[in-house]
Each structure stands twice: as C-alpha cells, then as structure tokens.
C-alpha cells in the first residue's frame, strides 16, 4: 500500500512569517488522517498547499507520487472542502454540479443522485439561503460525487449537528472501506477523530510534533488505577509516564502494552487494579511530555 500523500520539508512564508516551517507528513492510501493543532498552527495553510492553491516556498508536496502544484492530472483526483465555503450568489447545487462536471472528469451523476438521498437538500435552491451546516453538506455532496482518491477536509464538521455528522462520516467511512478513499481531516475535536482516524499528526507553530498511527499510540500506553499492598511499591522495569495518588489509590500512566503492564503489576499482588480507558487527548499529552501548559493548550482548544 503506497502513500497517498507525502509532504517533505514543507515551508510556507506569509509576509516574512514562517507559517509552515519544514512540515513532514505522510498519509497512507485508504487511511483517515487527523491533523490536529491550534488555530494558527498552520493546518489550513498546509491543506491549501495540498490542494494546490498555494505554491510552497520550499519542500515537496506529492499526491500519489506526483507534485500537486499546477498539475491538473493529480488535482483532478483531489477534492477539497475548505472551512469557509463559498458559493456564488444565486448558485444552487445544480449550478455547482454543472461546474464540477466540467472541471472534474471523474464526476459521476449517478453517484450524485445516489448521495442525494442521504444529503436530502433541494438542488435548485440558491445555496446562499442554506444554513452554514447545510452548505457544508452540499459541499460534501459535490465533493463525494467527484469520486476523488484524496479528500481534504478543513474543519469539516463545524456547524453540522450530531446527526449530520454521523451521516456524513458514515458515508465517508463507507467510501474509505470500499474504494480506499484517503481522507485528511483537520479538526479540534479529538473525540470525533478518535473513532474515525487511523493516523494522527499534531501540528504546532508550523512544525509536526508527532505523527503516528492510532493503534500504535493506543497500544503503547496504559492507564491503571491500583491500590498496592502496604509497604510495597511498583515493580522495577515499568516505564511510568505519570503517577499521582489520592490516598492509597494510585493513578498510573505507563508505557507498554496493556497485557504486559497488567501482568507486571499483578506480580506484586495489588489489592485492587483496574485498566481505564485512555482518551486520545491524554495519549497526546503524555506522548508530548506530560501535562505541560503549552501542550495542554494545543489539545484543549
């Protein structure tokens, strides 16, 4: 399975400010990649470079091994949904379809009609009259009808109600499963990303802090609550990332596989031991070196 998206040392400067300062990013084919970061971290700029809107000041941006900028052959297979969607006044979805059909060779009318049942919007109404959430839905409708190989989403679920979010992800994940659609989604909502992503990357101040597959992250960290017998301490050889206690109840974050860590702790006969779920947020915090204020800041926004 090759990589759908490869970004190497991406640099982008705006008026002397280095918004992207050597970003490295890899998205395997058929995966859902979550791009996380604060506002101003560079997520939107990164995605716009990927969409071929900005020309990078340095580095390579490759989709399916081909550079993106001014490359219609590759751009035809990329669909992009920005966070601030724009439609021309008086344009309805049908009008946008005409444009998309002309511009994207892989646009499929039958798929459009099929998806219409899910998105349930009036294609003749001017898009200006729709709510922001409905406009986003329209954008998804159009983008998916293009049958892209790569889908770039910038804060896509902003403004969508929970039901619509579910519906939209449902369709997206269906396509990921069925035809290896690659999705790159930037978001603040770690809770949402946790389910749908299989890879994540954290962008901060124009640099990639951390980029891993989700299973990698989840399988290498364990959260354990335990009460140890009087006088005993944790066995040696445990890689403890964080430790706190309320009375005799210890809260531990440890590196390692759950079964291994459990076994090791069990060896000292704890009075009580329980494995607790770790949220993606917590994983990030401890991966990045603890409950640092700055790190918290990145993730809690």
């Amino acid at each position: 399975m090759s990589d759908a998206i490869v970004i190497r040392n991406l640099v982008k400067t705006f008026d002397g400010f280095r918004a992207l300062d050597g970003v490295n990013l890899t998205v395997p084919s058929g995966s859902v990649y979550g791009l996380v970061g604060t506002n101003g971290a560079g997520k939107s700029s990164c995605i716009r470079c990927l969409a071929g809107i900005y020309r990078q000041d340095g580095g390579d941006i490759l989709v399916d091994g081909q550079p993106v900028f001014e490359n219609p052959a590759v751009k035809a297979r990329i669909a992009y949904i920005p966070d601030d969607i724009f439609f021309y006044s008086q344009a309805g979805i049908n009008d946008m379809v005409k444009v998309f059909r002309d511009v994207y060779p892989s646009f499929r009318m039958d798929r459009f009609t099929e998806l219409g049942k899910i998105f349930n919007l009036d294609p003749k109404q001017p898009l200006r009259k729709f709510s922001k959430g409905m406009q986003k839905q329209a954008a998804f409708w159009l983008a998916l009808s293009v049958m892209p190989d790569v889908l770039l989403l910038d804060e896509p679920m902003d403004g969508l109600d929970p039901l619509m979010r579910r519906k939209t992800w449902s369709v997206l994940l269906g396509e990921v499963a069925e035809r290896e659609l690659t999705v790159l989604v930037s978001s603040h909502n770690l809770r949402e990303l946790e389910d749908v992503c299989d890879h994540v990357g954290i962008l901060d101040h124009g640099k990639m802090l951390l980029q891993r597959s989700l299973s990698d992250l989840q399988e290498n960290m364990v959260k354990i609550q335990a009460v140890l017998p009087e006088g005993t301490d944790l066995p040696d050889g445990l890689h403890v990332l964080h430790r706190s206690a309320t009375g005799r109840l210890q809260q531990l974050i440890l590196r390692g596989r759950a079964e291994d860590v459990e076994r090791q702790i069990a060896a000292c006969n704890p009075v009580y031991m329980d494995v607790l779920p770790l949220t993606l947020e917590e994983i990030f915090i401890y991966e990045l070196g603890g409950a640092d204020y700055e790190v918290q800041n990145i993730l809690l926004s």
Partner: protein
Amino acid sequence: MISINYRDGRPIYEQVRDGFRQLIITGVLPAGSRMPSVREMASSLTINPNTIQRAYRELEAEGYTVSVPGKGSFVTDRLDAVLARREALLTDFRSLVGELKQVGAEEADLTRVIQEEYNT
C-alpha cells in the same frame, strides 16, 4: 446490532470482536451466514474501517468466521465444532480442577487465576 460503549476501557476493536462473537455464539448470526461487510460496519458505527478489519481478523483467527476470497466473511458453519471444543475443554477443566484439589490447591488460588484470565 453492535453498539460501542465509549466508557468501556477496552479498545473499540475488542468491543466489536466480542460483540460479534456473542452474536455468533447465541445464534443471532446463524452458521454459514454472511458477515456484514467492513464497509457497512464502518459506516453504521462511524468508526475507521481498519478497526473493523482488525476485529474480523481476530474472529477469523479464533475460528468463528471464515473468509472466502472474493466473497467476504462468513460465520463458520463449523460452530458446532467450536462449541463442541468448548464443551470438551470444560470437561478437561473440571478434571483439572479436581486434580488441583487433590494436590492441595486453595479455592482462592483457582479463583484468582480465573479472575486474572478473564480480566486480560
């Protein structure tokens, strides 16, 4: 048919795997029937298809499902074999427990082992 409990400490793929195992054993998914496609499951649960894939792989490894190239995954029609095996193992277990008792193992020890196994 499967629901995910996000408060559960277990990884999602485990919940999916266990959920299906339950459905197969209780016969909700009859032997020889086709498993829902990865796509359907990913879509309806809104979770990453890889997660579903993983659960399916484990079910297959445990022998509950069989994948036919080009056709998908099917519930094993050899479930009886699996259940029979379970029965056989339980019988073995019983005799093993009897033997342990004979050599002086405490009930508490046995229970502890059981507990440990079931908690991993």
